[in-house]
Structure formats: structure tokens, C-alpha cells
């Protein structure tokens, strides 16, 4: 298939970016989106040009490294799919495809389609962990956990931290990511002792990183490759109110 690509090119963090046009010819339908870019890049390199830089790692849909906003939708048009698992058969021959980075002020562009997502790492450092003795593994089922809680924690833990939620949000809010990471631990007895501190410090860090505020439009949920539900955001709102009351009054 033959495609026209409009791609965001940006020299470095400080440079201003622009959309450039590329003609991608003879792309096999079975290629993944990233493989399509690999083909385009090989041609750019053989012509002596600077290849299109983009993030990728496992290419199995589990690492959270690939990004790209494709035709305005982070990870492209297919629901619950990462860019690396999106295949060219979902596009039409002759189509023009717009490829942009995961845009947000908190995710500055490093080069072309690569953005700096370390703001997420700093939110995790603020409280997305539990303090335990890191010795031999604890026996399975040593701590009884109700099935429903385990399922909810697992559902939240499926977040791969790719940042699509921020890229899709009209306000560049990180609430889906932060709430998934907080809920994952807050649902479990192992997360209970540090719950108040976790919620307060993760939210404070999220705010200071320059993410926007949630306006309950759920664009994040629609583009999340792991279909993390907005229930986590409601839980974080609730946990934050309770943590504030506990901190202020007790």
C-alpha cells in the first residue's frame, strides 16, 4: 500500500517543530505501524537523510515505550492497542496519516516523536511503591486478599505507563495514570500502611509536574491500550479527600 505521512520533526528539546511530508510506497499490509516507520527510515537513511526518531522497545504491547499520536489519537484508531500492535491493514491504501508525538507541556519533545516521560517516574518515586523487607519471597497467599480486591488491583496494575492518557486528555491531565498506580497499591493490604502519605504525595507531585486537571471527559479511558477504567480516578478523588481529612484532623 502507498501512504502519505505527515510527520512531526523537531531537532531537539529547544527547537520548534514542524510537520513534514513523506511518501511511504509499497508498504506491506501485514507490517505493524512501527515496522512501516522502519521501512520509511531505511529509505531515508539510504538517501543520506536523518531518520524519523521514535520510541519503541518490546514491540509486544507490554512495555509502554512506544507512543505516537496517529491522526490525533494516541496509539492510533484501534481501541485497547499500543502503536506497536497496530497493523497497517487498519489503514486505507492512499491514506494520509498524521503522526505526532504524545504532546503535553509535561512531556517535552526530545527529538521528533520522542518525548520525555520522566515526569511519570517522579510521580512513582513520590509514592508509587510499598516499603517492605526485600529478602526471600513471601509465601503465596500468606496474606488473604478478597478476590474482588485482587481483581481491581490487578486491573489497575495493568497500566504500562505509556502516557497516552495525558496525550489524549484535553487538559493534559495525568489522573488516569496516577490513579491507576495509586489504586493498584491502595486496593491491597500491603499498600494500606502508606496509603495516606502515598495519595497526598503522588497528587502533589502530579500537580507540580505541570499536568492539567481532570474534567471527567474520559478521553484517557478511550485511548488507554490497557483499558484502565475511570473508576480509578473516582477512587483517587475519594482517597485524596479522606487522606486530607485524616492528615488535618487525626
Amino acid at each position, binding site marked *: 500500500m502507498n501512504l502519505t505521512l*505527515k510527520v*512531526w520533526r523537531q531537532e531537539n528539546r529547544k527547537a520548534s517543530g514542524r*510537520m513534514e511530508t513523506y511518501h511511504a510506497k509499497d508498504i506491506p499490509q501485514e507490517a505493524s505501524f512501527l515496522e512501516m516507520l522502519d521501512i520509511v527510515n531505511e529509505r531515508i537513511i539510504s538517501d543520506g537523510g536523518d531518520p524519523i526518531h521514535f520510541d519503541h522497545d518490546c514491540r509486544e504491547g507490554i512495555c509502554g515505550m512506544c507512543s505516537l*499520536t496517529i*491522526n*490525533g*489519537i494516541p496509539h492510533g484508531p484501534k481501541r485497547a492497542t499500543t502503536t506497536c500492535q497496530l497493523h497497517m491493514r487498519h489503514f486505507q491504501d492512499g491514506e494520509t496519516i*498524521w503522526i*505526532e508525538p504524545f*504532546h*503535553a*507541556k*509535561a512531556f517535552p519533545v526530545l527529538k521528533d516523536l520522542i518525548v520525555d516521560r520522566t515526569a511519570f517516574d517522579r510521580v512513582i518515586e513520590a509514592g508509587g511503591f510499598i516499603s517492605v523487607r526485600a529478602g526471600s519471597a513471601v509465601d503465596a497467599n500468606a496474606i488473604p486478599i478478597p478476590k474482588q480486591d485482587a481483581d481491581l488491583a490487578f486491573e489497575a496494575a495493568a497500566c504500562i505507563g505509556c502516557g497516552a492518557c495525558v496525550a*489524549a486528555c*484535553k*487538559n*493534559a*491531565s495525568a489522573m488516569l495514570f496516577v490513579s491507576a498506580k495509586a489504586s493498584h497499591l491502595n486496593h491491597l493490604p500491603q499498600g494500606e500502611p502508606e496509603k495516606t502519605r502515598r495519595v*497526598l504525595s503522588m*497528587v*502533589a507531585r*502530579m*500537580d507540580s509536574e*505541570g*499536568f*492539567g*486537571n*481532570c*474534567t*471527567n*471527559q*474520559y*478521553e484517557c479511558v*478511550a*485511548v488507554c491500550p490497557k483499558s484502565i*477504567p*475511570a*473508576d480509578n*480516578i*473516582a*477512587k*483517587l*478523588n*475519594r*482517597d*485524596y*479527600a479522606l487522606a*486530607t481529612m485524616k*492528615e*488535618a*484532623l487525626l
Partner: protein
Amino acid sequence: MKSFTRTIGSFWNSSIGKKILVALTGIALLLFLPAHLAGNLLVFAGPDALNEYGVWLHELGHGTAIWFARLGLLSAFIIHLILTVQLTAANRAARTDYAYPSTVQASRSSRSMMWSGLTILAFIIYHLLHFTLRVGNDYDGESYQTTLPGHQEKVHNVYKMMIDGFSWTPASIFYLIAVTLLCSHLSHGFASVFQTLGVRSSKTSALSGKLGWAYAIIIWLGFVSIPIAIWIFGYGS
């Protein structure tokens, strides 16, 4: 005490804290609307019913109740306004625009909350000047005093004020536009209250969305019925 004020301070400055306060003040305004509507609809029960209601409202609690309500509503409104303007400014600052923008499922109402909200603000200022402070009209004059069974002194003729007010085309048109945008604002605001206060889940999300629309449409129908009846169908003239 120091820890208490610090915690409250960080709550006020946090994104979630501000949103919770927007939701709580929103609830106060959501509760006010049906009460205001119920009072207004008495216009269809005739002059005496509406005027009696006006007198009752002003005499409740020896005239203190109405001031508690006014101050409470005004505070809720101002907090709601300041915080949403702050949040919106922060949201704009956090966003970088796409060359190819796209929306997957965000509703039109949710994307125009600031514009519907500011139109409602302009309307409320006009509405208060028109009917409460009665600026630029003769609604405080002798011709707007009337007798009421059971009252020795003359009372304010709320009924005549309403009929005359809505007989003026520009006032009715502005009213209809504002109430329609209010309906849009409420449809998103009502459902958002549940999410922001953390009481929404997958089990209840469809229900809260439908309740939001049902509430908004009932409020819209109720409020538009009055200018439509007076301005278009000549009710009361």
C-alpha cells in the same frame, strides 16, 4: 494547628482539592435551581399564588432566611467561578496543541463548560439587575404594588413584574439562550459531581449520566415554559 492549616492549604492548592470544592459548590447550585423553578412556576397558578409566595419568601425567618440563602448562593457561586477559572487556566497551560486534533468521546457539553458557564454568569448579572435590584425599570414603582387577600398593606406585584419582564423580546431571547446553555452545563456538571466526589463506579456511570440529562432537561423545560408562555403565547396579558 500548623499542620491543620498546612493540610487545608495544600488541599485548596491541589488539583483534586479544587475540583472537590467545585463539585460541592455545584451541588449547592444544583439544589437551588429546582427550588427557584418551583417558585417561578407559581406564575401559572395566578397572581395571588405568586405574590403570596413572594411575601412568604421575604418574611421567612423574620426576613433573615432570604439573606442566608442569598449569601450562601453568592459564596457558592463565587467559589465555583474562581476555582473553575483557575483550573481552566492551568489546563490551557498544560496542553500543547496538535496539528491534527481529534476527539474520541468527550461530549460537546463537557468541552464548552467555560463558555456555557460564562454566558450563565453574564445572564445572572443581568437577571439580578432586572428582577432583584430592578435597575433601569419601574418595577419598584407604585404601579407594581397590589392588594393580596389576607394582607392589610399592599404587596409587591411579582406576577405583573414577571409578565412585563418577559413581554420584552430581548429579555426573553437572552433568557432562552442562557437557560439552554445552563441545560448543557448541568448535563455534564451533574454527572461530574459523582466522579469528582469519588462515588461513581462502572456500575453507576451510565445511571449518573442519564440522571444528569434527565435533571438538565427537566430544569430546561420548566424554565423555558415561562417566557414561551408569556412572550409567544401572550399568557397574562
